[in-house]
């Protein structure tokens, strides 16, 4: 059973009608193709209508849609099954919320690193809801250095509700692990492309988010805090999450306008979950385009431009 968000209900109704019409044709042989065609037209208009006026909060909901593709879905599809997952931070353990390894895109080896969420209750727990521990960030850094050593471009896929705020995570230096990654990623001498595919929450996202090209999928979000937590802290109530989502300017178009990200990748009509093949193709094209672009840049220049880009961020007045 597919999941529909509240604002997707009109879409669900038409999806149901289409399914019914198709069943009638299957069971009774009556030709319903004309009805289906009309319904599909109606579906397109309905989706377009809903998606043309999505609120920031609705985009946050979409970024968490249970059927939205996760990092490994992208990687496995884009590398056509050539991805070999590499495990462990060589210190403490293997963090299942952070995955990584080499894969090939049309003959080019690429290092992929990303947060991974689970598809069902058991998987979600196994993946710690996509919330890495320090080991996850340290594994990511190990893999970045491995890629650098063998001159392979890096692609990070960001999808996390935040770094895990647990007791062991604090003991083992969550803050230091994220800081170290941000610092080291500035100086990695191969192209880095970061793509926020779902949720980009705070330092937990930025810990693998320093790149030459930072990209957001159309219906992802990226900010310093989730709208729920922002609401709880600033309004002292969970109820202002919609307002918080607006105020945080966390959508892809907001973040592009603020020059915090470099590019937006379009999602299929109705969101990534309604047409996986299409979103995979869009992301693959984006990766290839950017790898080609940044591979032409000399390593020292790549690093200094990356550093300069982040040094330019911020809005203030006076002197």
């Amino acid at each position, binding site marked *: 059973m597919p999941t529909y968000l509240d604002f997707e209900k009109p879409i669900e109704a038409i999806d149901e009608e289409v399914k019914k019409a198709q069943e009638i044709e299957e069971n009774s042989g009556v030709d319903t193709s004309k009805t289906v065609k009309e319904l599909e037209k109606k579906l397109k208009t309905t989706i377009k209508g809903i998606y043309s006026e999505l609120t920031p909060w609705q985009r946050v909901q979409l970024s968490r849609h249970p059927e939205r593709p996760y990092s490994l879905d992208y990687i496995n599809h884009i590398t056509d099954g050539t991805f070999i997952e590499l495990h462990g931070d060589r210190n403490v353990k293997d963090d299942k919320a952070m995955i990584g390894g080499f894969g090939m895109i049309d003959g080019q080896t690429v290092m992929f690193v990303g947060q991974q969420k689970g598809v069902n209750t058991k998987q979600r727990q196994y993946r710690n809801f996509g919330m890495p521990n320090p080991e996850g960030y340290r594994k990511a850094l190990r893999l970045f250095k491995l890629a650098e050593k063998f001159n392979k471009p890096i692609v990070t896929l960001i999808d996390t509700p935040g770094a895990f705020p647990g007791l062991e995570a604090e003991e083992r230096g969550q*803050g*230091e692990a994220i800081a170290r990654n*941000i610092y080291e990623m500035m100086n990695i001498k191969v192209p880095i492309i970061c793509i926020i595919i779902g949720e980009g929450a705070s330092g937990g996202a930025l810990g693998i988010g320093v790149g030459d090209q930072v990209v957001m999928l159309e219906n992802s979000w990226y900010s310093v805090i989730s709208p729920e937590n922002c609401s709880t802290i600033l309004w002292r109530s969970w109820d202002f999450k919609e307002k918080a989502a607006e105020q945080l300017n966390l959508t892809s178009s907001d973040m592009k306008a603020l020059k915090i990200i470099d590019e937006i990748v379009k999602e299929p009509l109705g969101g990534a979950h309604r047409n996986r093949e299409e979103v995979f193709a869009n992301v693959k094209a984006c990766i290839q385009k950017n790898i080609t672009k940044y591979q032409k840049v000399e390593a020292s220049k790549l690093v200094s431009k990356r550093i300069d880009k982040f040094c330019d961020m911020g809005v*203030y007045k006076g002197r």
Partner: protein
Amino acid sequence: MGWFKREKQGITTTTGEKKEIKEGLWYKCPKCQSVVSSDEHKETLNVCKTCGHHERITAEDYFNLLFDGKYTEIAKGLKSDDPLKFEDTKKYVDRVKAVEEKTGLKDAIRVAHGKIESQTAVIAAMDFGFIGGSMGSVVGEKIARAVDKAIATESPLIIISKSGGARMMEAGLSLMQMAKTSAKLNQLSEAGLPYISLLTDPTTGGVTASFAMLGDINIAEPNALIAFAGPRVVKETIGRDLPEGFQRSEFVLEHGFLDLIVERKDLKSKIAQLMAQFAN
């Protein structure tokens, strides 16, 4: 070594003068409840004489504590802007205005250069009184200027952290200050200059997850809260009480993230000593 004399003198004279201090000018330690006169408290650098509790002090206090007398503040006029037109229960611009009036500060950090035991140094020190020492664009830019100044004068950089984390009202822009400050520290490192990070109570969130943890030397004052996720959040996550001393300097040192813990009275000499070790 002028500072040591001052402190010793303070300790010997204050007891004798105690009776003369007017009522209302007392400091009660929140930790051990012992009471001393405000003057005496100041003489011990806002550290409780009985239990060693280090009270939070301002950027200016640290400048006076560490520099040899005079120092020059830079980028004094930098102020936050409000590109997001952020508004929660209050407008961000009004919040800033109110705190400016209350504290006389422009933002949550100040940068100055001067000499520490005759060695040039740049210090960036945070003020917790300004929206919880939160890091927005101004904090990021001032740290950037501090790095530039350190490079221009070939001086070590000392950043004194005291912060609740990133400033929510600057949303994505404040998040990017973690990246910006880390980028600038790469430039400092490239120039071969030492960065001493001093973590004071409290250092949490995005500040811990960026420049505060990136020192060539990480120093903390005793018993400072040093965390990524604050204790309340961690407690909620794990659903049980936190161990004694959790996320305090001594705990963080034992887990390997601090080089040393230094009492406030020894900060100047210890930092000067480290600077000399880097220089010679």
